[in-house]
């Protein structure tokens, strides 16, 4: 009977151990954000703040939730679409509203094109997207505050380093 007792204890122990799972929460990865840094066009190595920068995704009515709104910034992160190979952004310098609520800042439009790669990250995370073959094009208007775009890294696998340099 003693052996049976040990067996029962072992049985309960293994059942208890098996019901503890770390597989339910995704910690292994995430679809990365794109990092944009702003530099001085006359002095390409010097970061330069964009005054009162506002970033709005093309097709959206709200500003991006990853950077501060109407703030002087030289570095922002933006989310790219996971369902399409192209994402457009309105980058507004000196953003402000007039009495009627219309934007009076300088609006420049950049479209980023890329290829999407699906990657299975873990049981809890499932598939995430990483991007490659990134390129950006500026829509020319009468008064572009953005002078040049340079792609530093064409692959976006994390948000640790800068992918795009914008000169102004």
């Amino acid at each position: 009977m003693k052996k049976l007792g040990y067996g029962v204890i072992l049985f309960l122990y293994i059942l208890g151990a098996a019901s503890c799972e770390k597989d339910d929460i995704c910690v292994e990865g995430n679809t990365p954000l794109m990092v944009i840094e702003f530099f001085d066009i006359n002095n390409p190595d010097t970061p330069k703040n964009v005054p009162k920068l506002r970033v709005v995704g093309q097709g959206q009515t709200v500003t991006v939730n990853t950077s501060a709104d109407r703030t002087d910034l030289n570095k922002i992160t933006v989310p790219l679409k996971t369902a399409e190979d192209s994402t457009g952004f309105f980058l507004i310098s000196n953003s402000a509203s007039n009495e009627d609520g219309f934007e009076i800042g300088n609006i420049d439009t950049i479209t980023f094109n890329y290829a999407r790669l699906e990657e299975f990250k873990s049981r809890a995370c499932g598939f995430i997207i990483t991007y490659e073959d990134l390129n950006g094009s500026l829509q020319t208007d009468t008064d572009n505050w953005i002078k040049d775009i340079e792609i530093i890294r064409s692959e976006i696998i994390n948000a640790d380093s800068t992918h795009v340099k914008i000169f102004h």
Partner: protein
Amino acid sequence: MLRYSISFIVLLSVVSGFAQDKPIDTQPKDTVVYKQSYGIRVGLDLSRIIISSLDDNYTGLELVADYRLTEDLYIAAELGNENKTQQEDVYNFNTSGSYLKVGIDRNTYANWYGEQNLIFYGGRFGFSTFSNTLNNYQIFDNNRYWNPEGFATASETEEEFGGRTASWIEAVLGTKVELFPNIYLGASIRLGFLFTDAQDGRFPILFVPGFNKVTWDSKFGVGYNYSISYFLPLYKKNRKVKKIAAEGEEQ
């Protein structure tokens, strides 16, 4: 010195015993020989049948069998088929396939006269061939800017990953109790170690028929079964005399 003297006296008494014509047998040995049945036991796993009837996303069947080799050694095998659809947070997939496990069980239970129960430990080698179908999946993305309602759907079309195989070893702990003559009710728990690299390819192996759930970044898995089986006696053999003597000393 005292021990040696006692040994010497005992030796002397034995020697004096030989001097008698016939030894006096005060405890005559029981001459009735107890024969034990040897044969094959076949059955079904009850848990897989019950879960199949309760869970719409699972069908499974497992046949169990063992053959008694010696006093306490059995060859044991399980043959099964499982079909399981699982909904995870961001994807839904199906695993369908068959498996075979072969190994040995060793009985540790010292049965009383007439009993034929088992409390056993054992090992198995398991092999499974199966296919996965990724039914649908979304893209995991913490940022809700472009998809405020939830994760963006990436695919609704079924994608099949066929011809998959997996092998593993298993440690088994279990019991088989004779409920009625030759009808046994059994239960076992299993701890498996997977040999196959589960995280290879576009869609990893997350469930293996027979092995059960494959935990992320771990080679170990757990399983169980509850079997009902029928013992078919083929021949009878004497219980080993040596064993009886050893057990007599223990008690």
